[in-house]
């Protein structure tokens, strides 16, 4: 049975009709137009569907949309409303991604880390993105970029 829920998506409060068995990922992509979170493994393994739910990174493929009634969700679109931010600029400069499929999820994980810990160690960065699979890069340029932007922000 359809039910109307209210989600604040990327700062905008919106009502959306959902079925109990709709996942958050489906609703974000198919009903709310947020195509940033990707459908990868669709079983919680790959991290490309990561979004921030009330400020914390979560797998949107493992959450029922109906559970998030009244919540605040930020997807990759909401992390850079005015175009690429400092983190994305460094990702681009370092050619940190190749195909880019994992990029939205990794950016969400990295932003959660930097929001909570502006001066992470390399170990902190590795732990923060350990739930994100990238099949192109071997992770090194991604880790380097996250460390680089944290140092740049610090020196401002």
């Amino acid at each position, binding site marked *: 049975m359809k039910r109307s829920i209210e989600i604040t998506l990327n700062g905008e409060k919106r009502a959306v009709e959902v*079925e109990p*068995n*709709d996942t958050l990922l489906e609703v974000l992509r198919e009903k709310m137009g947020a195509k940033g979170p990707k459908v990868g493994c669709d079983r*919680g393994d790959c991290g490309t569907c990561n979004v921030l739910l009330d400020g914390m990174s979560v797998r949107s493929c*493992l959450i029922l949309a109906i559970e998030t009634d009244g919540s605040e969700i930020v997807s990759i679109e909401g992390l850079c409303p005015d175009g690429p931010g400092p983190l994305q600029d460094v990702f681009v400069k370092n050619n940190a991604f190749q195909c880019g499929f994992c990029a939205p999820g990794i950016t969400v*994980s990295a932003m959660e880390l930097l929001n909570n810990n502006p001066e992470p160690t390399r170990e902190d960065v590795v732990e923060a993105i*350990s*739930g994100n*699979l990238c099949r192109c890069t071997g992770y090194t340029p991604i880790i380097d970029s996250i460390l680089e932007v944290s140092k740049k922000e610090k020196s401002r």
Partner: protein
Amino acid sequence: MAIAHEFEYIKPSCLADAIEALARNPGKATVLAGGTDLVGWIKEDFITPETVIDIKGLSQLREITLDGDTLRIGALVTFNQLIESQLVIQRIPLLWESATVVACKPVRNRATLVGNLCSGIPCCDSGPPLLAYGATIVVDGPNGTRKIAAKDWFLGPRRTARSAAEIVTAVEVPVSGPESAGCYIKLGRYRGEDLAQVSVGVLATKLGFRVAFGAVGSTPLLAPKIEAVLGVPDSLNEAKIREAQELVEEEISPITDVRATLEYRMHMAKIMLKRGVETAAKRLSGRCPAYGTRLI
């Protein structure tokens, strides 16, 4: 991608309503907390509930409290809440260390300790520490509250002592005993989302060791024969550790599956036992390595 199976979703605001909803449809209703196992299982049609009861409205289950000699962890406490809790770090660091290697941050933001127990998977990371601590699982149902010892909780792969009409409300860990130190080691194919190929949890007090394994039997299991030969930490030596390693083959019964072969699990369990026992003993005497150090 979509979940084909249809169900009703309810979110009660008190425990009595949740228990009633579960009792109304025994066996056909299921409890949802973090959902990191449950949603996947519904997707795969591994379970097909008619009703999903979301207990996240029961805010009294969100707390970690110290009540006298018992540390109580509510059913909605997530692994990341455990990791951030000073009470957990200071009083039950073995459980803390195991929480740090559960899946990855976005899963730990959602997954609960109690959900991990209820899923009852043989490789669950909370099994060995809670067995070693002698924890108790608190369940509520139509017939009231009952407490189940961790050692009686796991009955087989994905089978636990909880009846279909019961809800787990908390885990209680005794913290009154002598000073203790622990060590949890998890072997996985890669760091991040993977489940354990083998895990070992060791708890040391001046009175002796508790040793528990995960992913090497149909449930997480205690290893009493190994505990007996290890004796007390003060008199631990190489010979006793070798003897304990020889007993591993009697205590565990691993299988070959997609994550590892039987032989590899058996071999690594012996190595991890030695490291776990030595590390727990060192930590008991106040020496390094710090909790959270990767030992494998």
